[in-house]
């Protein structure tokens, strides 16, 4: 087995562990931190079903962002939807036989790569062109965009410019999944693409990419507007009532 294959196998095992483990820890901390007061941003749904719908609109359509700023919405939504299609398309490298709907999504996923890079470009341009956004941008904001564009560009390069050994890539990843290492094709574009993806997985749980799990835990979006009908008590707040109506 070549050094390269072993190296990338190690990288992907480690990146996956950090991604899954880091995210699990973060999600656990969000879930365990109580929300002591009712703070939905109103008007808010008065039923659980309504909250599910509100969250669905937020996650699928970026409803609040649409109200807020049409340019950010356009670029942001374009990027995220394209990314979703691209990820679905990539499932073909991990499944055998390839699921029928992944086959079906294939052509969309291919061209979504361009839309994804275009969306990212729009978002990046705003960081230079709009003085307010320039003011709040940190180096990491720029680097994350560079990273994502790098992943998109190297992927598109392999698809449309210099084809890589797709069959070999698939065998490598199927091998990783069954702990039975298969050689990784030594194509520079592929190695760059895979390194950047691994880096993205590693930084996910320690960066602003936490907005992805975060949105589901946002009390202003996930709470039901019913404070007059239900008494809402978090554990640390409830403890005050057990110790009598103590005024601390």
């Amino acid at each position, binding site marked *: 087995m070549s050094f390269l294959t072993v190296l990338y196998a190690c990288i992907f095992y480690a990146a996956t562990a950090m991604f899954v483990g880091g995210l699990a820890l973060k999600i656990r901390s969000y879930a365990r931190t109580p929300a002591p007061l009712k703070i939905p941003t109103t008007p808010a749904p008065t039923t659980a079903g309504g909250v599910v719908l509100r969250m669905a609109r937020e996650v699928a359509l970026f409803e*609040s962002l649409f109200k807020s700023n049409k340019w950010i919405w356009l670029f942001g939504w374009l990027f995220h939807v394209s990314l979703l299609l691209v990820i679905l398309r990539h499932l073909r490298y991990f499944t055998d036989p390839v699921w029928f709907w992944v086959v079906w999504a294939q052509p969309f996923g291919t061209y979504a790569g361009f839309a994804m890079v275009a969306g990212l470009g729009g978002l990046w341009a705003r960081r230079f062109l709009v003085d307010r956004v320039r003011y709040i941008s940190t180096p990491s904001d720029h680097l994350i965009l560079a990273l994502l564009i790098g992943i998109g560009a190297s992927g598109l390069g392999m698809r449309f410019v210099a084809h890589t050994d797709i069959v070999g890539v698939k065998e490598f990843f199927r091998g990783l999944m069954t702990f039975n290492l298969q050689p990784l094709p030594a194509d520079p574009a592929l190695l760059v693409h895979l390194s950047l993806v691994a880096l993205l997985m590693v930084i996910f749980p320690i960066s602003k990419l936490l907005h992805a799990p975060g949105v589901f835990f946002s009390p202003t979006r996930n709470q039901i507007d019913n404070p007059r009908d239900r008494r809402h008590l978090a554990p640390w707040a409830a403890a005050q009532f057990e110790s009598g109506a103590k005024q601390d």
Partner: protein
Amino acid sequence: MAAPQFEVPKLTGYAETPAIKENATAHVKSFPANAAIQEGIGFPGELVEDWHDKAIAKMGDLLGKYRSLRVFMDACVHCGACTDKCHYFLGTADPKNMPVGRQELMRGVYRRHFTFAGKYFPSLVGAKDLTKELLDDWYKYYYQCSECRRCSVFCPYGIDTAEVTMAGREILDTVGYGQKYTNEIMGKLHKIGNNLGLPGPALQDTLEGMEEDMLDDTGVAVKMPLDVKGVEVLLVTPSADFFAEPHVESLMGYAKVFHAAGISWTLSTTASEAGNFGMFIGSYANMRRAALRIREAALELGVKRIVVGECGHAWRVAYSFWNTLTGVGHGGEDPFSIELQKQLDPRYPAPQHICEFTYDLIQQGKLKFDKSLNDHRVITFHDSCNVARGSRMGDMPGGQFVIPREIIKAVANNFHDMAEETIGEATFCCGGGGGLLTDDLMEVRVKGALPRMEAFNNVVQEQKVNFLALICAICKAQFTKVVPYYGFDMSMVGGVHQLVSTAIQLESEE
């Protein structure tokens, strides 16, 4: 109105987003609280020696207690969607008044002390040490936020800067760096029972004065009962309603509604304040202590319903938090809340807003109005920020927008809304909410009112509007003071129940 020490913005007819101007309001700092004030509400009297470590420890404590803070510190992607949504930014152009700019003051420190990236790569992710300069910035800019939640409507993750501001103020208080205005009032409320520090006999006097005024005006003996046991309704209203203009006009409006509907009611000396500044400073303990007064008065007086007068943040606390804090509400399953809730009439929401109360009576045909008595007025309505985005009226989401407007339309003939993007859930704060209603912050109060003044000016020019109807004690005080800076007369400002008061038809008791 004294000559301003700053440039008052010009009304141009259309709202513009300014280019950023760094440190534009870095010189605006409200007076810090002295030792007596701080200690009176349970905080250190002056900046403690080890303030840095105490502040970081408190931040850790709050991160463990409030999911909002924990999620909001991580989730922001610096997208910029909120950057042009804050009235203080629009009025001052200071980038630290952009919601995300305000959050970053805390997020930088959060990253430094509570995240891997910020510990090891601080400059990469904008992590900051909490220096004395930064602590001063916290103080300045967390008291240039009115906790109006407008930013939370527009953020894709619902990040509510008000939550960050409250946490910032709580940390500042904990290290002995509190604000005079808010904390002094908080102390008065604990000690005397209302924000103005009015003792019981003074309250009795002023209520009697109002009874006489109403008798002179209407020929009907409308009562203003105080501390009467066994009545149907306890009315809890902001204490400004007892003394300030135009607030008193609305208080007389409520009294007339009770009179016309024949529903027995009372005010309470010990619960003579709906406002709860504990929320402003993010202090759960102070907020709860203040709210417990309402519970105790309700139990003591044996009332069946609790109605809250015109006040924005007070209504948010009442609607959203009272059930949690004090059991004023329904649906409780523990002995503490059941003790009170078995006394409250389950047919009515608890607490109930005075607008919900009046609107119900209008729906039932129990009130009669002569709308023409309001014909000298052309009215517009300002949605108070905390009512709009932190509460509800009625059964339907958004009832808080419908009900006050329906009341106005029931009592007056001339009503025009301001521009869509400045009302409803997108309403602008008056500029004086959240602990900013103090003269030492006049510059940001005037500048922060700019977006509302633009929208108001447009309906004044186009629809000949001459009355700005309000449902908040702070809005009333703020606009009375601030509209003259923009060339309007302060008599244009008033309450919704002032309009009710003008038009309502009373019959004297048999």
